């Protein structure tokens, strides 16, 4: 069934969009990532103009993540205190990232920088996660004695300590602020929500339990996606609500199935699968960067 998108100014198959939403929403609920890194390329493949794809994608991620976040909150898996601290850092980081992005654009480096950055960040994260979780899974099978919750190092000596009860942490607010800020900076440069970077950062840098990480990350994604949606609608006029709602029709259902499936997985299994997914996306991007494009020229409004 063809439906006309008023902002993208073109028509697309409605059922196809619902299917794409279902897939991305499922990943969102399972791993606590927004799924923007997968959604945007898929929408571009359907011929939707890039600015509309990014903005409407953020709007869809907002809806799907709300659904996932509610599901996680019911399982008591959202650390609201940690979430607020991360969002505060994230907003500051995004503001910094936007001006950095403008500078890159002025220097004419933007495409090369973003693409390379993406592959390097994703590749490194993916390898680290797969290796760590594989070790954890092997250790479980050997019935080794459980490790301590997390190792203590210099980070735990910092001031402004705050108790994050759900995360079973009593640490300084500085590391979460820096993590939120760093992810916000990177994600505003790369044009994605940053869930796939935030999840490993919370696990490995902050030492949070995997189950709580997913719910808290979803809270972060909800806040950032809402901010991006409003900015894009206000400043650029590129949010297509018809496109968003079609994607959401599949997305909210997918997020619930993902959350149900995720609750049956162990922490290290979830980390292993997310690591594998991140690696797969990095490989796909690298492949796209290195194979000669079938169209040497591209056309855009401007």
């Amino acid at each position: 069934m063809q439906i006309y998108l008023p902002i993208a100014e073109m028509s697309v198959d409605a059922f196809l969009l619902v299917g794409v939403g279902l897939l991305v929403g499922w990943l969102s609920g399972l791993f606590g990532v927004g799924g923007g890194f997968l959604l945007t390329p898929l929408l571009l493949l359907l011929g939707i103009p890039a600015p509309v794809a990014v903005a409407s994608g953020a709007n869809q991620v907002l809806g799907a993540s709300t659904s996932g976040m509610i599901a996680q909150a019911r399982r008591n898996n959202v650390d609201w205190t940690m979430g607020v601290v991360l969002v505060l850092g994230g907003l500051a980081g995004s503001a910094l990232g936007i001006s950095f992005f403008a500078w890159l654009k002025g220097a004419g480096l933007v495409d090369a920088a973003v693409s390379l950055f993406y592959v390097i960040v994703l590749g490194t994260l993916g390898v680290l996660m797969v290796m760590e979780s594989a070790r954890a899974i092997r250790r479980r099978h050997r019935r080794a004695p459980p490790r301590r919750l997390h190792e203590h190092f210099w980070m735990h000596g910092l001031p402004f300590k705050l108790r994050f009860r759900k995360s079973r942490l009593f640490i300084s607010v500085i590391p979460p602020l820096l993590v939120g800020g760093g992810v916000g900076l990177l994600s505003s440069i790369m044009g994605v929500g940053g869930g796939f970077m935030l999840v490993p950062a919370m696990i490995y840098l902050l030492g949070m339990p995997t189950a709580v990480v997913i719910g808290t990350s979803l809270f972060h994604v909800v806040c950032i996606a809402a901010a991006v949606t409003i900015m894009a609608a206000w400043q650029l006029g590129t949010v297509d609500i018809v496109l968003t709602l079609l994607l959401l029709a599949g997305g909210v259902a997918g997020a619930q199935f993902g959350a149900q499936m995720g609750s049956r997985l162990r922490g290290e299994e979830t980390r292993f699968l997310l690591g594998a997914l991140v690696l797969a996306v990095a490989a796909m991007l690298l492949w796209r960067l290195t194979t000669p494009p079938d169209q040497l020229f591209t056309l855009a409004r401007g």
Partner: protein
Amino acid sequence: MMRRRLPLLSLLLLALGWLWPGGAARAQDLVARLSVERVELSTTFAGASVLVFGASERFLGPGGAEVIVVTRGPVVPQVVRQKVRILGMWFNGPAARFPDVPAFYAVAGTLPAWRLLPEPLRERYGIGLDQLPLRSTGARGPAFRAALLRLKQQQGLWQEDIAPVAISGGRLFHLEMPLPSSIPEGLYRVEVLLVDEGRVIAQETLSFEVQQVGTAAAIAAVSRDQPLLYGVICVLLAILAGWLGSVIFRRS
């Protein structure tokens, strides 16, 4: 959605009626009309076609006069980017900006226009994709112009002789012009030229409007006129959808 179209035959008979109004008035060389005045972009729009039809008192076809139809949509800016290879990877490279090209352009004739008119005349009337005045800034080179022509044609937004103007009975002509779903809003001008022996002997200019209507138009209007409000609505709708989903798909 387009207005319901009358059967082709009755339209052509109507055209004949215009051509010889009661027999008293002087017969006209050329009369042309469109099947629609407005193409409506509603939420179910998936492309449409416009029928250009008319008649001439001259004999049409081999040995007689010929017809050329040129359609131009609103003018838009376009950017063509070239991908370049750096260190074994492909990145967006130089770009050329074409500030004023027609968003839609279609030329069709009873025969290809280059066989009917000499180049100076085709240039004067802007007939044919090779006669579009494509001014550009930024990167130079014929490759960008060629890429613009190729990509626009692939999108179905620029058409040259994809279907001929059909002649019936040596007097009537019609052309079915497809419009892809990505046509933008605006005023579209249709020029119908009657051509004989390498000269334009009669000309009629028609137009139709492409317009968003209903829900699609309302959404586009709010997004344009109240962007901040629109953004807030989008956020609330997405959150509502997320909440609804978590209620509907909840399992105990």
